[in-house]
């Protein structure tokens, strides 16, 4: 939110940086409570808007509507880049909807024009089913979840986000001394991957196993929850980079983005 005269709400301007391939969509505010917003979407380039940004935008609309707060947009929200959407932004509220998304994606992804292979689509299905089902059936989020996926020249990106409790608060129930949100997310992801967590072999564990399979050349998992972010990148089945970040403005819920490709990093 930009500053302004006291008592006068100024528009919250959305920048293209937050919407691009490496953006976190952090220009779209998703706080614990909704507030009146004026989003300027006129600078967005539809072909370069990532699913993370668009799902957060949809959740922001939902949050404002649910709390009776006005949300005004200067321009229409762009759709996922022209004809390259695997899944448009969808608000899924129960497991049956998640299953329908998975079935549609599994039958629709192959076409002569795409380089999307079964090896690539499998992690997408895992991400949507595991993360989406958690958000809609375990009481993690009474608002359901938002899902979107796109492909472009052999790379795919999928986002599953919700407005639930979030990973850090969930972890703090078991480990109250852990007060760094980014570290809490890293621990949750790594416990899933190592099988040390309660739900061995599912959730992040199943997802990371698929991201490190030999058929995937490059992959990246990004998780934003609370005031922390965790990124881990894989190349040829090995983790080549990971980063924990603290962010000044916390997000409500948990936002997970998976990018994978045979020619990473994706070029717009």
């Amino acid at each position: 939110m930009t500053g302004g005269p006291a008592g006068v709400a100024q528009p919250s301007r959305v920048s293209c940086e937050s919407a691009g391939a490496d953006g976190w969509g952090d220009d779209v505010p998703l706080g614990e409570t909704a507030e009146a917003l004026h989003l300027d979407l006129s600078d967005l380039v539809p072909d370069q808007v990532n699913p993370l940004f668009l799902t957060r935008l949809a959740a922001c609309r939902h949050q404002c509507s649910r709390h009776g707060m006005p949300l005004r947009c200067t321009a229409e929200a762009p759709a996922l880049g022209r004809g390259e959407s695997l899944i448009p932004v969808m608000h899924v509220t129960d497991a049956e909807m998640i299953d329908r998304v998975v079935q549609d994606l599994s039958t629709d992804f192959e076409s002569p024009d795409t380089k999307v292979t079964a090896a690539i689509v499998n992690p997408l299905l895992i991400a949507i089913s595991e993360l989406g089902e958690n958000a809609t059936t375990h009481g993690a989020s009474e608002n359901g979840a938002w899902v979107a996926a796109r492909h472009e020249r052999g790379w795919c990106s999928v986002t599953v986000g919700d407005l639930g409790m979030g990973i850090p608060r969930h972890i703090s129930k078991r480990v109250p001394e852990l007060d760094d949100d980014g570290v809490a997310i890293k621990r949750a992801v790594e416990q899933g991957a190592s099988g040390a967590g309660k739900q061995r072999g599912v959730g992040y564990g199943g997802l990371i196993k698929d991201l490190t399979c030999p058929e995937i050349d490059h992959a990246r998992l990004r998780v934003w929850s609370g005031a922390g972010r965790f990124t881990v990148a894989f190349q040829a089945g090995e983790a080549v980079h990971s980063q924990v970040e603290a962010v000044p403005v916390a997000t409500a819920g948990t936002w997970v983005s998976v990018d994978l490709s045979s020619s990473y990093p994706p070029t717009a």
Partner: protein
Amino acid sequence: MELKLADSGTAFATRFRARRMLAALDYEPEVIDFEGVRSISHSFADEFLGKILQRAADRGRSVALINLEGKASETVEEMLRYRGLDDVQTRLAA
């Protein structure tokens, strides 16, 4: 009796789908055929196959898994190890 998974689709990914298929299954399969299955998640494998195989193991019966290949095979094998059914599976496959 044989259960052909492909009769119900090619991608199996949610616990919801697993529970729905289990509820609709009115027999105890002796063979589960994976031919034509393109994708199977850990959650589905645990909720559907795990419960069928656990039930069979508890009753001393065998279930053969056929045409199980690639990533789906890895997923099912991991689920069997997690449930402690890998020894049972070896016996079943023999």
